[in-house]
């Protein structure tokens, strides 16, 4: 295949995937407000468009037209760069998520923007870089609340990344590959072949750690409204605030995508007779189900204390994940021999 075709194919896929992701981010904010409202017997946004459907667009326009304030005493360069450092890693991870079976497009194969053979590690590598945006944003604001939020977030993200990394090792042992496409294809064959049924403990630890990793309630220590105003983005306004916001929701969608690929069979249909539905629909359905779960959790649980959070991560989740690895490894060894 020629270089030009490769680049064109990549650009088309990037455009489509980014468009879908950004649209999902926008409507995730809407869905969150709506679902939370329903859980609290309210109606949520109703004014802009029918049933408030244009609300995310109105919010976005408002944020982008607001004044961009840089507080005095802030480190201007890092203050300006931090939101971008936060946003880019969140979006870049979607490059390796397989959204459909391979199909031919312009003489090449589509289905993933790029299928790295270290795809999973690639996502974790960039997810760990996202913490920089948070820490630097908190530091550069020259504000106590922001600094405390940034430090908490640093500690939390590092701890829970470890849990995520350990909880997926079981899946890797089963599928013997780091490529997300290979992991998905390993779960081929319907509902009962999903990794969820082989690795339920890993799934639970992954979901808990993912909630903590994306700074969502009940683990939203870095931005605990009632104690730290807004945490690391207390001083941010306008477009830069919007970037942080986008990054948070894009991260949520990314970890949900990853969970559906790792544990719920990705783009595979749950049963044979449903194969006529295209793969990306299944991926989207599973991802949105997990996103609903995130909102559900937010609507249910109160925030935990910071020391409880750290204790839970280090003393409960990591040992459980390690035991899960041990059990899985022994099981795989016995089955293979």
């Amino acid at each position, binding site marked *: 295949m020629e270089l030009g075709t490769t680049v064109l194919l990549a650009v088309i896929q990037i455009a489509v995937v980014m468009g879908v992701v950004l649209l999902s981010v926008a409507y995730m904010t809407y869905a969150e407000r709506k679902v939370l409202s329903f859980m609290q017997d309210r109606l949520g946004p109703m004014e802009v468009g029918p049933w408030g459907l244009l609300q995310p667009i109105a919010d976005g326009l408002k944020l982008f037209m607001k004044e961009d304030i840089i507080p005095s005493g802030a*480190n201007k360069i*890092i203050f300006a760069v931090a939101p971008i450092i936060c946003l880019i890693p969140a979006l870049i991870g979607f490059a390796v998520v397989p959204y459909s079976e391979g199909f031919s497009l312009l003489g090449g194969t589509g289905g993933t923007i790029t299928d*790295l*053979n*270290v795809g999973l*590690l*690639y996502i*974790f*590598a*960039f997810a*760990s*870089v996202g*913490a*920089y945006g948070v*820490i*630097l944003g*908190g*530091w550069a604001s020259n504000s106590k609340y922001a*600094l405390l939020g*940034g*430090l908490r977030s*640093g*500690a939390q993200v*590092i701890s829970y*990344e470890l849990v995520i990394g350990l909880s997926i090792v079981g899946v890797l042992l089963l599928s013997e590959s*780091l490529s997300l496409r290979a992991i998905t294809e390993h779960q081929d064959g319907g509902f009962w072949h999903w990794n969820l049924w082989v690795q339920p403990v890993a799934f639970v630890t992954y979901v808990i750690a993912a909630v903590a990793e994306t700074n969502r309630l009940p683990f939203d220590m870095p931005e605990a409204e009632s104690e730290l105003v807004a945490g690391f983005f207390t001083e941010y306004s306008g477009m830069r605030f919007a970037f942080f916001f986008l990054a948070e929701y894009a991260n949520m969608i990314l970890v949900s995508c990853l969970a559906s690929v790792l544990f719920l069979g990705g783009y595979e249909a749950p049963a044979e007779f449903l194969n006529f539905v295209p793969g990306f629909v299944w991926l989207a359905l599973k991802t949105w189900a997990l996103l609903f779960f995130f909102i559900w959790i937010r609507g249910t649980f109160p925030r935990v204390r910071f020391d409880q959070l750290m204790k839970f991560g280090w003393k409960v989740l990591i040992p459980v994940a390690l035991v899960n690895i041990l059990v899985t490894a022994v099981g795989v060894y016995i089955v293979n021999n």
Partner: protein
Amino acid sequence: MMQAIFIYLATVCVVCAVLTVSLRQPVYNVMALLTMFFHVAGLYVLLNAEFLAVVQIIVYAGAILVLYLFVLMLLNLRSESRHLHRQWPFAVLILGSVAAMLVGAMQAGGFGLPTGEAPAQVIQAVGNTESIGLTLYTDYLLPFELASLVLLVAMIGAIVLTKKELIQDHGEEQS
């Protein structure tokens, strides 16, 4: 194409390395080093070591440098008026000898060494991750276990050094 990419990566690496040792604000030093780590990862990709490239980012960027930033913010270090060591002229002498040693070693070394049994094609056929894993867990099993011991000792050491109560208790016992 490959050469252009190499030249870009190498230039950025060197520039960022210079910035790392020359900038005054500690946070800028860390940021420069972070940029350099990314470009070193790019070099690894050029050398067909994708797994190492990703591990480089996870470990160096995701863990080690975050720790540096964390400590910087904990101590709230700011830039100082004088950032060079008092003895820097003396240092230049030492550096001259180190540079001479490096040049001499590179002159004497030469690059015509015998080749092993893992050319790029073989590695790509097996998969970078798998071939590393196979070597690591067979030929280098003992060093691997020793490395884990090193990490354990470092972990205990770090905890002992930073835990305030331990130091205080010790002092009270002696007095």
